């Protein structure tokens, strides 16, 4: 059981780190602000979600698991709200994009 949980943790964390790497690569390599925002919000928050998911079996109690989920929910909420705002600013400054 614990071996299974550990394997789950490893797979999720490795996948999460992969998404972080992909997000950063997109942030560095994509040509314009709009697509960079896309790389950021998608890959980044999926990456954090996978890491939170992977760490859930290791949370010491219900409180710890709840805190992990709360962190993810807060980041999702923040990025859902700020993403459109940032995109609007980027469009205003750079009408060609």
């Amino acid at each position: 059981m614990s071996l299974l949980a550990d394997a789950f943790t490893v797979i999720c964390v490795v996948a999460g780190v992969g998404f972080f790497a992909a997000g950063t690569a997109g942030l560095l390599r994509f040509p314009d602000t709009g697509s960079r925002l896309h790389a950021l919000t998608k890959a980044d928050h999926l990456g954090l979600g996978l890491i939170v998911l992977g760490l859930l079996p290791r949370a010491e109690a219900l409180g710890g698991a709840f805190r992990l989920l709360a962190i993810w929910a807060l980041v999702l909420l923040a990025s859902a709200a700020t993403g459109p705002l940032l995109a609007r600013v980027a469009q205003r400054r750079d009408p060609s994009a």
Partner: protein
Amino acid sequence: MIVDLALVAGILALALGVLAARQAFAAVAFFIAYGLLLALAWARLGLLDVALTEAAIGAGLSGVLLLAAARRLASAPAPEDPPSGRVTRGLIGAGCTILACALGTAVLLLPEPPPGLAAEVAANQAATALGNPVASVLMAFRGLDTLLESAVLVLAVICTVALAPDDGWAGPPGAPQPLADGPLALLARLLPPLGIVVAAHIFWIGVDAPGGKFQAAAILAAMWLLPWMAGLVPAPPVGARALRVTVAAGPALFIAVGLLGAIVTGAFLAWPPGFEKPLILLVEVALTLSIAAALALLVMGPRT
């Protein structure tokens, strides 16, 4: 070890970026990222109380304050001093290099084991009935520092309000905020309840683990600022009695309890034995609310 070197390299790059930036906006963006990395550095050093404070104040409130200032200065720049000449700059550079090298040498040449007060704190911590040694230092062993610090915040609020021009005096603090729509208005309605719960959590664990009143107060201040920034609620006028009482109540209660200690035990700010924990918690709650109100007013700034 490699982790620390990567963090240090990042922090140095951002610090150089702040110094070399051409536009104020870019410099402030670097400074915000610098605050975030600094919080991670404090966590790596194992100073988690400091890391929490830096995360709340350095990466959170400072960003709001400085970005708003950069935006307002972009349309109406403040007067600048004439730039110093090349020789002067060289001399300043040399002096600063010498200072940095001397400090670095001092850090490397610290005696082994370095002098510290950890043993004294450990020996006397039980008397404060708090599990977090930093909280013991803040509230008991160096209580006067904490009292004076909250007084500094009150003074800073008075200064900031006094800087408002005559027609802005006694109005609400800060520039009026445009009404938000869509996502920001939603966030400003959803986040504050969650944030207040988080602040209460951070305050409560601060009794026995890293956390505590400054960190909780910074989060509370941010939660008050958010609906204001979204234009959902106006800031209350500075003259509002409730606001003034809130800002002053924490330090006043701290002084009152300190005087009580002077009467009961004969020393100012000494906690009466047997009542340490409830009294400390009472003062901490009052201080948290006062610091939160003061921080929010400071970030809003004077009405101009």
